[in-house]
Every structure is written in C-alpha cells, then in structure tokens.
C-alpha cells in the first residue's frame, strides 16, 4: 500500500478528511489502520494539520474566563502524570499501562486521572458534564507514533 513519498496514495483524500476529523467512524477506523504504514499519508496529514490549525487560529479571539486558568491549575495539581506516579503505592490499574503508546490512550477524562479531578468550582455551568463518556476521547491522535 505504501509507495514512495512522491507517489500519491489512494487514501490521500482520506488523509485530509482525517485531519479535518470529517471521516465517518468506519472510514476513520480503516484509515487509522492504514496510517502507520503510509509515509505519504502521514505527510499529507501533517501538512493539512498546519493549514487547518491556521484556520483555527484565525477565528475571532475571545478571552477565556479567568476561572478557567485557576481550574486548570487546580486540576493539574491533582492529576497523576504518565510515567511519573506521584504517590507511590496508590497506583491504579487504569493508569499503570505502559507508555509505549502514549498517544493511543483513551479515556482522557474518565480513566487516567487519579485522584479524580474535582469539578471546576468557579464555573457555574457544566454542560455535558466534565466526566465525559468514553466517546469523548477518540484514540487517534498521532496514532502512528
């Protein structure tokens, strides 16, 4: 499937759609399997990521509420970091998985923090709930790494 760098891959349109996060779930799964094998598609994704991030940076700029920073720092202080267990002897199974696939872990919000991050006190509304369901995390980021 993988050709030379300069040979278009039949998946190359999917590579852009992947960067846009616009594939259907079945396509996304298929492409996820393809990507690690195809340098050409990885290059397309990386180029598209840069272009699309520039679109993201071009939106109207709005200051986040100050409470968000405080909330983030508070949550970070209570968040176990990968490969750096802060409280030995309190490891939990869900956080003890090896780091060989760091980008492939799912359940960012729900399964990898310990102890649980408290609800952000300064923010009145929590739409959707901070304890996101499994669908929250799509274990796809840089999954070829």
């Amino acid at each position: 499937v993988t050709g030379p760098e300069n040979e278009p891959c039949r998946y190359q349109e999917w590579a852009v759609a992947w960067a846009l996060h616009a594939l259907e779930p079945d396509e996304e799964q298929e492409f996820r399997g393809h990507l690690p094998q195809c340098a050409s598609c990885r290059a397309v994704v990386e180029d598209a990521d840069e272009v699309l991030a520039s679109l993201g940076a071009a939106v109207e700029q709005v200051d986040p509420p100050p409470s968000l920073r405080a909330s983030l720092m508070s949550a970070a202080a209570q968040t176990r970091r990968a490969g750096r267990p802060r409280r030995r002897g309190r490891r939990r199974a869900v956080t003890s998985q090896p780091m060989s696939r760091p980008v492939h872990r799912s359940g960012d919000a729900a399964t990898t923090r310990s102890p649980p991050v408290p609800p952000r006190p300064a923010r009145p509304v929590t739409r959707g709930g901070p304890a996101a369901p499994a669908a929250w995390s799509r274990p796809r980021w840089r999954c070829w790494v």
Partner: protein
Amino acid sequence: MDEKLVQKVTEGDQQALGELYDRYGRPAYSLARRICADEGLAEDVVQEVFLAFWRDPRRFDPTRGAFVTWLLTLVHHKSVDAVRRESAIRRRTVPAAEDGEERSAPPGPGADQAALGAVVAGQVRAALDRLPAEQRQALALAYYGGYTQREVAALTGVPVGTVKSRMFTGVQRLRGVLGPLFGDPADQPGGAR
C-alpha cells in the same frame, strides 16, 4: 520559547503549564468556543486538552510540528467530538451556506501576540477568500461546523466524492498560499525531549 516550556512541562513543572496556557489558552478557547458555540463546553474542551498534555506530554511530538499546531488540532478534534456528543440539536440548525461568520469579526484587542495573530489571521482569511466558494464552504462546514464529509454532502447536495475532492483540493490550495507561514520546520529543533 515553546520548546523550553514544553520541556519544563515534561519535567513536571506546573508553572510552565501555566505559562503555556497563558500563551495559548486564548486561541484554544476561541477555537473551542467557535466550534462548540457554547462557552461552558468550550471551557471543558480547553481544560481537557491542557490536562491531557500535562498528564502525558509525550502526546506531543516536537519533530512533527509546532506545539500550537498540535494544540489547536487537538482542541479542534475535541470540540467536534463534544459537539457531536452534545447536540444534534442546536448547531445543526446552522444554515448550510454558512461559511465563516468569524471571518468578518475584528481581531481581539491588544497584546503583541494578539497583534501578530491578527496579521496571520488576516492572511488566512484572505487565503480562504481566494478559494473557490464550493471549496471554502466544504472546508468551513467540516472544520468550523464539525460536519463529516457525508453530512457536508447531504447539506450541499453533492456526491460525497465531490466533497472529498473539494476538501482535498481546498486544503492543498491553502497550503500553497499559506506555505510561507509554515516554512520554518527547521526552526523546530525537535530537541524538547
């Protein structure tokens, strides 16, 4: 600068995380808010993205691009996920022809970085404006609207294959126009770890 902060975060420096947030929290929040159309949801997304990086800084690979690119990509994907999860409701009433009201919005006030960002934003908007309308629309619906290719096809009344090629060609054209903005991978030493 980013490389040093990333390195410090990797070493567990929480203050460095705060500094990264101070640099990029605003664009991250702005993007999340644009996609989510909900401030609370946008806050959730931004916090989760920065926490994900804090939890495992190796998610970011400096050899593959700039930190801000990685960050905004993750913000985008998480925002789209949040929107898809949260609502087939509110946002799905956005007219199909909507292709970027943000493009007429004034840049945020102020600081150096905002001013620099405004220049870049101006270039990006100009590049978008130069795209054929159908490519711009397809990209805007997918990127800002969070629609899948199949949904964009349904919204615009063209075959999925056409949408795919419009998106692909649109991104390639933007890449060509905006290339100078990305012409500095050599400046990314990749030595943050």
